[in-house]
């Protein structure tokens, strides 16, 4: 008896889907679009976070020293830095070395003379942290040491990157929300059309005592299938393109960090599936709520 009902429900749902092929296609495509956008936004954000983290872990702090410090004072500063927790490596660059480096990068040998014989560059300690998370704190502590004039680390870049991803998160959220809403509307419209089409049938079903659940199920399955099909196409698109991207980056741009954690990617794909089916069911429930009330 149960099996008859399940069979009936699925036959009804599939025949509804095929009745209105254009509306069905449009519904599936919008779900697909919404989910492709959702999936790619999540993967993009995960990757920017990953890039930031990877680069951050390689970060150096440059501590520029005040002018005119004696060798002894410089050694004292070095010792104070070395005592700070989280310092992995300290390297001193003297003003002469700094100047030579600058000359090399500018392709000139007469820089000192051009500047009137006075080297304006200060001595600098390059400090590597043991852990990316310690960098900011460490930089502040180094800045407080007597003899250190100025510190610099990648703060600007990371602030920009994080600002950018925040901004992107909002844009992504809005675009995904818009497309989700469009999918919701289209699926609801699709189901409403089929409800209207079957008005007589539904009326008879109610008169002979079919339960409301029985009348609703085919429509709910229909919505679920629309969401499911859209999600499956989106999942195929995302996993294919992400795998291609992965191959390309690993083979040709190996210095670029990229998320390869397959558990995480699987979770994103599963989430897309759930989201698609959820939209479908929600749309059915919305379009059915106004009828079958009593």
């Amino acid at each position: 008896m149960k099996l008859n009902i399940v069979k009936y429900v699925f036959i009804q749902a599939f025949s509804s889907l095929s009745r209105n092929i254009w509306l069905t296609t449009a519904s599936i495509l919008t779900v697909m679009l919404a989910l492709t956008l959702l999936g790619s936004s999540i993967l993009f954000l995960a990757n920017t976070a990953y890039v930031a983290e990877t680069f951050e872990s390689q970060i150096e702090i440059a501590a520029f020293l005040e002018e005119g410090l004696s060798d002894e004072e410089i050694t004292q500063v070095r010792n104070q830095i070395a005592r700070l927790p989280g310092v992995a490596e300290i390297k001193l660059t003297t003003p002469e070395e700094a100047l030579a480096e600058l000359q090399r990068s500018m392709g000139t040998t007469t820089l000192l003379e051009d500047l009137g014989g006075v080297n304006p560059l200060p001595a600098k300690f390059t400090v590597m942290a043991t852990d990316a998370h310690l960098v900011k704190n460490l930089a502040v502590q180094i800045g407080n040491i007597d003899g250190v004039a100025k510190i610099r680390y990648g703060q600007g870049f990371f602030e920009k990157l994080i600002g950018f991803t925040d901004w992107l998160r909002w844009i992504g959220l809005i675009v995904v929300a818009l497309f989700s809403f469009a999918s919701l509307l289209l699926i609801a419209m699709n189901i409403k059309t089929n409800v209207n089409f079957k008005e007589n049938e539904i009326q008879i079903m109610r008169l002979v005592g079919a339960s409301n659940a029985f009348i609703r199920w085919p429509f709910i399955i229909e919505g679920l299938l629309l969401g499911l099909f859209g999600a499956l196409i989106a999942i195929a698109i995302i996993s294919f393109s992400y795998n291609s991207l992965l191959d390309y980056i690993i083979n040709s741009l190996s210095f670029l960090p990229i998320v390869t954690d397959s558990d995480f990617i699987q979770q994103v794909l599963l989430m897309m599936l759930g989201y698609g089916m959820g939209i479908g069911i929600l749309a059915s429930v919305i379009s059915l709520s106004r009828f079958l009330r009593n």
Partner: protein
Amino acid sequence: MIKLRHVSKIYPNGARALFNVNIEIEKGEFVFLVGPSGAGKSTLIKLLYREEIATRGQVIIDQINLMRLKPRQIPLLRRKMGIIFQDFKLLPKKTVFENVAFAQQVLGKGKKEITENTLKTLELVGLARKKDCYPLELSGGEQQRVCIARALVNKPSLLIADEPTGNLDVDTAQEIMEIIDKINKMGTTVVMATHALHIVENMKKRVIRIEEGKIVADSKEGAFIN
């Protein structure tokens, strides 16, 4: 079987359809509801299958108080009754057999049981030979017989009919009445709203006359005189 106690029905727009109606119908009875159009016959019929709910009073069918029925319990009530209408309400794209089978399908019955019941019921209304026809290929009387078969196929204990002969000529109407009478003699309670007085006079059954929402006469078998 059916008890209406002090039933009034006022529609949301203020129209008073029924006023303090009291009726008691025994199991196996055959009752006509007569009266001019707009007297409240259809409203009374709708109260019985819980399409409408009374504003005041109590409607009790088979010991179920319809006033207290929850929406999700309505289907269970309707499975106890078969309902037929003036306009048949058949599905034009389904054959006679499929139309009758559909009423069982939606209750989740098995294929073998459905086929057996459908053929038996079509036999009862004399349509076994036309089981593969579509409704529009049938005469009005035949369509109404399909409708009756559909109402009966789930073996209800109560048959409710709202002007079932309204669209039919006199002879065909008589045929339909013979079928309904046969069903009643098999034990099914029948409540039928009609304004076809010739039918009522021929059948010699209990007649309840409604005018302006009130019962003005309730006469036992054969006593109905206009």
